């Protein structure tokens, strides 16, 4: 935080706490729209699908996986923003992280929840989903841990647990602040939520250590999560999916789309919660640089994938590639290349990196591109596998489209609830970046 106009501790509290208690008409509108869309776009079609069978979706023979799994990867990818970035920056002691990491972690958590929803939506028999949980049962039968899907189950469970703990533990001192500034029932709820936190030297010390441990544990975990998601695909022998490059490709794409997601969220927080003093050009600039780097890595890996596929000369790979590049879904492919490989190149310019509005649009475009990538992964590979006689085609159905839209509403709803429950900016950590009030300091 720059010296110029540095806020005081009290001002930090005053900036954040009201965001939790003031409910504008804008907020209510946004919330009611997103809840409506969530119910009618997500849960209603899902219920319908549970009732009639997964046939309500557009998947069919050969294209056994569709939009649901594409969206699943997208949301898992988006979740790689917060926790991973927050942990990395925490370890590297980058102070600029502190004003944005809370909302970034919330993004992680909520995209993970959305992704977990997609696993359920995808399942043919949701009512037996507990068979994937390793608990003793009347069948004496356990899940198959050799399956990449079980890696997934384990990874997502761990990631969800670790992320929730990470964000919650980071918020405990702030909950105490909320408690101290609230009255009535709200005070009591937050009193429980902060465990009776007092901010003693002992508590701070333990929290510091615990937080560092979490960060250290979460970094490899986050990398492993998207690698594992990629193995769902790469461990199959489907041409176009069976690539060793898939794990880094997915991880890089995940961080890419997650970072873009942070930029988007940051923009809105800054705008509607008036965090201008805390979320500054510096943040946009730094994240812009990160986006640029990731975009370059992403393009490189993409090129590798296409090149190795083509150069292999295998009929399977070439047909898969041909369909991806020039088939029915080719426009989407080229849109993805434009948004994720070429558009981010403008971030070489610092002027653009520090232009909030442009950054917003670029970040949204990147996520549209990444969403397309995930869709293409499922839509272009499976219908063109090995036996030409079994070639088919995949087109999402109305139910799938509705659920896709609805899942964004799920995420938004969760986020809208979050900003009223959690301080959306970490107060104590922002205070940490300010000058410590000392008598000496007061004198000078």
């Amino acid at each position, binding site marked *: 935080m720059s010296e110029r106009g540095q806020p005081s*501790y009290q001002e930090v*509290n005053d900036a954040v706490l009201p965001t939790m208690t003031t409910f504008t008409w804008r907020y209510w509108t946004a919330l009611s729209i997103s809840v409506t869309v969530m119910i009618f776009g997500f849960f209603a079609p899902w219920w319908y699908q549970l009732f009639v069978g997964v046939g309500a979706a557009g998947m069919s023979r050969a294209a056994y996986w569709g939009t649901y799994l594409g969206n699943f990867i997208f949301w898992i990818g988006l979740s790689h923003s917060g926790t991973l970035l927050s942990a990395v920056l925490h370890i590297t002691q980058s102070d600029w992280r502190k004003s944005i990491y809370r909302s970034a972690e919330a993004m992680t958590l909520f995209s993970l929840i959305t992704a977990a929803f997609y696993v359920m939506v995808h399942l043919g028999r949701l009512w037996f989903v507990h068979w994937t949980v390793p608990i003793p049962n009347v069948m004496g039968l356990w899940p198959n841990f050799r399956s990449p899907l079980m890696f997934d189950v384990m990874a997502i*469970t761990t990631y969800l647990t670790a992320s929730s703990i990470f964000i919650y533990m980071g918020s405990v001192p702030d909950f105490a602040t909320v408690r101290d500034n609230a009255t009535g029932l709200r005070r009591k709820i937050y009193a429980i939520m902060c465990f*009776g*936190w007092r901010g*003693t030297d002992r508590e701070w010390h333990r929290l510091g250590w615990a937080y560092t441990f979490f960060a250290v544990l*979460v970094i*490899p975990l986050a990398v492993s999560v998207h690698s594992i998601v990629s193995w769902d695909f790469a461990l199959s022998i489907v041409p176009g999916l069976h690539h060793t490059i898939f794990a880094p490709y997915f991880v890089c794409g995940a961080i890419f789309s997650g970072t873009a997601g942070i930029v988007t969220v940051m923009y809105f927080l800054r705008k509607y919660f008036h965090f201008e003093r805390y979320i500054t050009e510096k943040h946009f600039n730094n994240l812009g640089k990160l986006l640029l780097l990731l975009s370059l890595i992403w393009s490189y890996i993409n090129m590798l994938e296409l090149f190795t596929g083509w150069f292999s000369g295998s009929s399977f790979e070439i047909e898969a590639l041909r369909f991806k590049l020039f088939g029915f879904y080719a426009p989407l492919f080229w849109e993805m290349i434009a948004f994720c490989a070429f558009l981010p190149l403008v971030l070489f310019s610092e002027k653009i990196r520090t232009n909030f509005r442009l950054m917003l649009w670029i970040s949204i475009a990147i996520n549209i591109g990444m969403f397309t990538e995930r869709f293409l992964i499922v839509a272009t590979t499976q219908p063109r596998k090995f036996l030409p006689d079994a070639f088919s085609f995949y087109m999402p159905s109305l139910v799938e489209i509705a659920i896709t839209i609805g899942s964004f509403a799920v995420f938004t709803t969760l986020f809208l609830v979050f900003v009223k429950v959690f301080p959306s900016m970490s107060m104590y950590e922002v205070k940490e970046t300010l000058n410590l009030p000392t008598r000496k300091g007061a004198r000078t």
Partner: protein
Amino acid sequence: MSANIIGVYQYADDLLDAAGRLKASGFDEIELMSPIPLHGVEKVLGPKKSVLRRFALFGAIVGGVGGFLMAALSAIVFILPTSGRPIVPWPPFLIITFETTILLGTLATLIGFFFSANLPAWKDRPYLPAFSDNRFGVHVGCDEDAAEKVEKIMLDAGAEKVERVKT
């Protein structure tokens, strides 16, 4: 023990100063309260050792061993061969092992945190709401007859005010 005295400070260096003086006067039960983590507390109150890292390590080891055994034993308890792969193949099971290591490591760290930070606070503890905002505080638990001495030290170190709280 019967007296709980809290001193409120506007400045952090005053607080540390007060803590140092109290420590020097032979009071052991000193707690500092602040809205942000304070650096340099250890210099004043002596180094802190926490069992946290042991919890983390223990959790991770249990998670790792347990995870692998869960995968391996559940494969052996009902042998269902798949794809010509071994019943207990280590590469995929290492992934499971890795995940459970992290999972239990995290959970153990959480438990360790609660354990070592003395949380949640089931019993009432001395506190003032200003400590989460912009004030620093020190709490000393002492005998009734030492209370006045403590209050004096606190005020000398520049306390804005000194309060006695009941618990």
